[in-house]
């Protein structure tokens, strides 16, 4: 945790407007939000069910072509 120390040079601990403006950026926040909440789409080869379905469809097409 933190420990306190007394600042003896009578300097006020308050951020300036310039300092605050440097960090105020809603577009960055919105991008971070999108990254946080966006559903990641799984590639087909990583989804076993979908992969199997495509294999079956492929086999069926092959069988139909062979007939």
């Amino acid at each position, binding site marked *: *945790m*933190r*420990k*306190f*120390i*007394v*600042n*003896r040079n*009578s*300097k*006020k*601990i*308050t*951020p300036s407007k310039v*300092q*605050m403006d*440097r*960090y*105020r950026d*809603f577009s*960055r*926040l*919105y991008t*971070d*939000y999108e990254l*946080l*909440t966006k559903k990641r789409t799984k590639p087909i080869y990583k989804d076993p069910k979908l992969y199997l379905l495509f294999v079956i469809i492929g086999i069926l097409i092959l069988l139909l072509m062979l007939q």
Partner: protein
Amino acid sequence: MSLFKKRKSKDAMSEAEVIALAKTDVRHFGQLYEAYFNTIFRFIYKRLGGNEAEAGDLCQQTFLKAMANIHRYEDRGLSFCSWLYRIAQNEVNMFFRKQQGNYTVEIEERTFAGMLEEAGINGYMTQESQEILIRLLNDMEQEHLDLIELRFFQELSFKEIADIYNITEANAKMRVYRILEKLQKKWNETK
């Protein structure tokens, strides 16, 4: 004409209306962000003793959490700002925990003197006495330190503290004064 009447400007919208809009479309959260950014940044900056870069990161994290959980916010008579304060408070405490006691927070001599006065520790203070008092303060429980910090170093009102902790104003006052009594007792024991 009626069409113009129906259209409300963004400025005329109440905070509750903006929150309701933000719940359906987070892009409206921007108005809340603009309205409270300075307050929350100042709060975190002071709690970190003037660490600008960390304050920037924690402020962004606070608003990101608020944005992601805006649908959970319920107006129970407390201001939206106190909800943001609560998130910021958690973020800062989490940061302190990660530092494992290696983080020092600078406090203004003026606010420290104000706290001592309120605790009934008056009279001329040598630098050595101040150091002893700081040590006593640092030995206190972190939850107690949070309250002392909010009241004296952040200079929040009892109402604001009560809103952050979701307690009554009288309860906030009582908690703060009990901690001050403890500090005074410890100080008297050292003398």
